[in-house]
């Protein structure tokens, strides 16, 4: 039975969005093992759907994806006050300079391929700095 986010050691929910199944699988395994509640999405469209359901504390978002890319996800989040404060770690094989020309609204950038230590450090840093979020509405 799935644990609720409150019952987990650090009680934080992370939404991982990446079209590469291998990347998604590895990150899901590592973050779950550390006690995070992990929600996965394979493209931007799926990510927006999950966003509504899981109210993540942080998003790890890939830039180049089919159906809807990371730039479009960021744009949608920026236009919605409910999501605009969620910290986002943007990941891409592009240089950050090239990424900056394409999109804005992310908190941190990690160039692919990245080491998981670097990702974990970035997650901890952003979660520590983030204001306490209000509990998701009970259905």
């Amino acid at each position, binding site marked *: 039975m799935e644990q609720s986010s409150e019952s987990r050691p650090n009680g934080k929910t992370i939404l991982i969005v990446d079209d590469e199944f291998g990347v998604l699988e590895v990150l899901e395994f590592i973050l779950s093992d550390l006690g995070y509640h992990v929600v996965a999405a394979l493209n931007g469209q799926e990510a927006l759907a999950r966003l509504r359901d899981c109210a993540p504390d942080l998003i790890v978002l890939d*830039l180049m994806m*089919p*159906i809807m890319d990371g730039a479009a996800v960021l744009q949608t989040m920026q236009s919605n006050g409910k999501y605009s404060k969620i910290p986002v770690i943007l990941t*891409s094989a592009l*240089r950050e300079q*090239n990424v900056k020309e394409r999109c804005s609204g992310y908190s941190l950038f990690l*160039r*692919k*391929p990245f080491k998981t230590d670097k990702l974990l450090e970035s997650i901890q840093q952003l979660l520590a700095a983030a204001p306490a979020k209000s509990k998701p509405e009970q259905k």
Partner: protein
Amino acid sequence: MSSDRDLTRVASGVQGLDTLLRGGFFRGGLYIIEGAPGTGKTILGNQICFNQAKADNKVLYVTLIAETVGRMLLNIGQMTFFDDAAIGDSIVYISGFNALKKDGLSGLLHLLRREVTAHRAKILVVDGFASASDSAQSGEELKVFVQELQTQADAADCTVFLLTNPTEQTPSSEETMVDGIINLESCLHEARSARDLHVRKMRGTRHLEGLHSYQIDDDGITVYPRLETLIPEVSSDNGWTHKISSGNERLDQMLGGGLPTRSVTMMVGPSGTGKTTIGLQFLSNSTKDEPGLLFGFYESPERIRSKAQALCNSKAGVFESGEVEIVWMSPNDQLLDDLGDQLIAAVRRRKVKRLMIDGLGGFNKAIRSRPIERFFSALVYQLRAEGVTTVCTAEVAEIIGPTITTPLWGLSDVTDNHILLRFREVGAALHRLLSILKVRDSGFDPGLRTFSITNNGIELAESSHDAESILLNWYARERKIAIVSAGAVKTGDE
């Protein structure tokens, strides 16, 4: 019904490959690039993408492979064709693995259709197509997929490349349907790696058939079309009537007035007989209007220049002032057709008229997958077509002795003039002898001449007299040794 785009080519931009394809792939076509792991499929696929991005075409690269896009780009990023700025705008990398895993071939096809349209892609690369083939429930399903992809590619004017591993069944069902197939092969040639590219199928074009060498380095893939497939369509047989100086007046007299222009002269002899000296004398007659080239394997340009200084005396300046270019190649780990390509390029670059190849054995040490005579035959034809008069050196193993083994079998058929250099030992002295065995379409002096090497190059004796007495003495000595040896054997038997 035909339209303008029927004949539009999409250049790969890969050096040598477009030559094989007579200009490139056809726009809207579907092509398979097949090869075992490590043969360079992903490099070739990316190289085509970046070259097309430079030409302002949108590219979609879909991976079905285990390697992540980040890791792949990290590796590709080391190559000179890689352009960071092209990624994202011109080239989009996405994974098709989930679509394939979730909904099979129809899911993948749906993804490809949608993304090609969304990105207005003119080039689509599907890397790891073997995963798609493996996921097909039947050959029929795969056929339908390929057919639909082909229709989609044609409709979107998008050229598609499927990168895959070799199939057990050849031809596989998809191979019968695509517009072209390129095979990449890698094998060991003695202790060295040899790579060959084979355009196995190419609809609508008379591509260059057979195996062609390729190499992978920091510039990506470079293909070297087999020299014999590039034979120019111009006659190279005219021009025999003119002669140019060999650089040595007496040798010119023996040759019947000099070397026929566009001819190829082979100088055969053991090391130290003076082959390079004669070649340097030939090059020392180079001028701005008749540029020279020394294409050598064994001596560095510095060494050649100091040799020319010592042996060509007043004419040595041409080796310093640019009338003669010296190109030095290491004979190790070179591809035969790369050497041929570099030689022809150096000839064309300066419109070379006098060429010395020092020595032919360097070609023989290069990596090749076919008999060398075919290469030489094509090289000679090319050089004639370029209007070059060539002098080559070839070393023989026998230093002193009555027999001489042809250094490169089959070469005498394609070369025009033959000069033989020998040592003969008489008493305590070593003598050099020169003789002409053949001059194409011309009379010549077949007499043997002694010669010495001086500050002015070789100095040939006026007549055969000295050579004759040296040979008579030498044969008399040989006969005496033979009689003494026979006697010793006879005594021993008794």
